[in-house]
């Protein structure tokens, strides 16, 4: 089976690819999505127009977009941090759940403290829980070379079950004993709410600001410190890392923990900024962790870009939510996200390979 086209490794990467690829991917995804819409009897232009309108076109819409974007920003950062060292951590989902558990605990336990203290403890606990959960994956990989894709995935499920257990299947510290009928978690007190920051008429969730700060810190860590340098060497050339005496094992655990901590921070934000309660079902349905992977891929693992991509996907998600109805089926958002990922991934190939015609004559005989 010999194809007429051939992929040939590129030697250099033209600079324009860095922003060209994501943009072209986006365009490609929109076109493909448009085809799907058209084929099922909808008008792509109007659908896209409404997405833009509901996602970004007004301060109100934009504020709501930021709300959707915040968890994506955290999980996107989490995924980027791990992927940059070649660790495919798809456990952001479970690590976020653990973060919500930790933060809810802090929020309830310290409810008599001033707001600043509560927020601080929620952040710390969220990061600790999420980081620890991810560290398990890291330790397994460092010590036993187990594949982190599967282990992080499995732990997602265990985390989900744990979350369900705490709210639905036990009378735990987290569960509200007074909830009738449908079990819910304890609501956090008002002083545990993370307040928005207003700029003009745009409401920015506190968590979003934290995410931006985190993105800057991550960027700094990876681009300007010894730690980041070593991670870069390990990811790029394990042989060279060995040559330079860089120890990979500890890094694996540390990077995984960092990744989990960021996802956990997203969980803390989910509890503190938005839900103010440990909402087991709600957070599971949202699938923030998996979207985070999309964010990271689109942002090409750059933490600062991740923020922008998160806002973009947040707008998409927000519009999808707001527009839900017969004309705008719920599956559209996931479909578009998936298409964007495909095109991003295919586009990534173009940065590494060039498409050439199979050179039959020069090779002599076609095999």
């Amino acid at each position, binding site marked *: 089976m010999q194809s007429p086209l051939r992929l040939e490794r590129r*030697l*250099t990467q033209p600079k324009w690819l860095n922003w060209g690829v994501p943009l072209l991917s986006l365009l490609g995804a929109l076109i493909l999505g448009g085809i799907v819409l058209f084929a099922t009897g909808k008008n792509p232009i109007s659908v896209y127009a409404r997405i833009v309108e509901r996602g970004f076109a007004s301060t109100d819409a934009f504020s709501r977009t930021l709300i959707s974007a915040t968890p994506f920003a955290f999980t996107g950062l989490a995924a980027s941090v791990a992927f940059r060292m070649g660790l495919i951590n798809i456990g952001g989902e479970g690590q976020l759940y653990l973060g919500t558990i930790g933060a809810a605990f802090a929020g309830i336990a310290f409810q008599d403290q001033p707001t600043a203290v509560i927020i601080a403890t929620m952040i710390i606990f969220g990061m600790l829980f999420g980081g620890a959960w991810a560290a398990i994956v890291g330790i397994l990989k460092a010590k036993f070379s187990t594949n982190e894709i599967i282990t992080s995935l499995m732990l997602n499920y265990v985390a989900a079950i744990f979350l369900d257990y705490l709210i639905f299947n036990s009378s735990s510290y987290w569960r509200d004993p007074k909830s009738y009928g449908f079990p819910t978690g304890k609501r956090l007190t008002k002083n545990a709410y993370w307040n928005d920051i207003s700029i003009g008429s745009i409401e920015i969730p506190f968590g979003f600001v934290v995410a931006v700060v985190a993105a800057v810190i991550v960027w700094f860590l990876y681009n*300007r*410190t*010894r*730690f*980041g*340098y070593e991670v*870069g*060497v390990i990811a*790029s*050339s394990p*042989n*060279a890392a*060995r*040559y*330079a*005496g860089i120890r990979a094992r500890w890094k694996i655990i540390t990077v995984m923990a960092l990744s989990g901590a960021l996802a956990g921070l997203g969980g803390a934000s989910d509890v503190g900024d938005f839900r103010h309660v440990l909402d087991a079902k709600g957070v599971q349905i949202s699938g923030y962790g998996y979207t985070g992977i999309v964010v990271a891929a689109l942002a090409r693992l750059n933490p600062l870009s991740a923020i922008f991509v998160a806002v973009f996907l947040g707008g998409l998600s927000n519009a999808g939510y707001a527009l839900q109805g017969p004309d705008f089926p719920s599956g559209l958002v996931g479909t578009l996200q998936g298409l964007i990922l495909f095109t991003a991934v295919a586009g990534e190939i173009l940065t590494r390979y060039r498409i050439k015609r199979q050179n039959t004559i020069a*090779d*002599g*005989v076609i*095999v």
Partner: protein
Amino acid sequence: MNGIVKRFPGVVANDGVNFEARAGEVHALLGENGAGKSTLSNVLTGLYRPDEGTVSLNDEVVHFDSPRIALERGIGMVHQHFRLVNSFTVAENIILGEQSSSLFMDTASAVERISALATQYGIAVDPSARIWQLSVGEQQRVEILKALYHGAKVLILDEPTAVLTPQEADALFTVLRSMVAEGRTVIFISHKLDEVMAVADRVTVLRAGKTVSTIECATTSTRELARLMVGRDVVFDRVIRANHAKPDNIVLQVSNIDATDDRGRQALKSISLTIGESEIVAIAGVAGNGQRELAEVISGMRPATRGTIAVNNEVVPNSRVRKAMTAGISHVPEDRLHTGLVADHSIEDNLILKSYRGAPISKMSVLRRRIIRAQAKETIEKYDVKTPDTITPIRLLSGGNVQKVLLAREFDSLPSVMVVSSPTRGLDVGAIENVRKRLVDAADSGVGVLLISEDLEEIFALADRILVMYEGSIVGNIPAAEANRESIGLLMGGGSLSAENN
């Protein structure tokens, strides 16, 4: 094979090679690394297509469009790196390539046939054993059986004894003899003179892509073969040294080092050597005789199972790269882009690969980009590296410039000892000169240089003393003034200087 020419970018691997092998003989193909032996055999087995020239089987010109066709015409090859599936049994591996229309595997009859073949040729192998359970020697036997099973009339073996113990090698020779006894042909590629003399009927010597000569083994000696392999003595200019070697001020002492290779076999057998201040000690030898492992042990990348390394009379802890670095050991590996450097990183990032941990490059764990860049700019000027800037990824540089960067980093780390492997391989003339000059400058400034190279010309030009490594041991230690190509070549092939081998 007639007038075979095979070109690769930048090098003519086979330049008008004529080669002919008869039925019922073991014909050896002798030459150093890079002489063109592997390329020639790849042409013969259909892996490469010759740019010019023809191959004929039994006087009939053939064209091999793919390895499959060569296999069908009866040409089989046992490569240095086996093509076996580890988790399969011997039988499964052998029948994998079988052309058959039947749906089901007939393991039983295959096992019978394999056992029959095995007994016929005296190859001891259990058809139901799994490959990972077998020793390397046994795996090789599976490869041979595979070729026989598919009806190979011509069997090519590429450096087969590189992975065998002497006993296994003898067993192999017996098998080969029994194969040719019934009219098959064996082509035996090697660089080991004594083995060639032991097993082959005729030998063709290749050098630098050309056929040198084809001789009957009965009428020649290892000395003569060595001479043919490395060429007549040409007078070299030895470099002029500003500071002469002081072998008595020992900077590096390697004592009784044992080590294993990646496969778990013993790569180094009680290696001991010393290097003095300003001394350039060369290790000559064909690749694969333990040189890489030695370089790795000295630099701390590979653990030694026995023995010690000392720099300036202080013992360096085993297998600790950073400790070796701080002790003053510098390593310029063979694989520049993927081991010594990070191919995708910029020049300036590569330059700090060793120095990033401390001042002035980093302060409180933060890298100081301005200083990194400034130092990088100084370095590329000082060492005349041709590059548009310091942030270009290093893999875009030419080979010579890549090596300049690597050497620059190593020299600037002010080592006491430099272990340099094949530093001029693949470089153009200008770059080669440059590298040699740098090495000499380093030695002149007091550094003890261990030069591991397969290029005899280079060794003779630079070295104060020449060691030869063969099968994990040091088999020769000769001051450069007393050495000549013939004797070194002989030692490289496993011969001994004392007796006249026949």
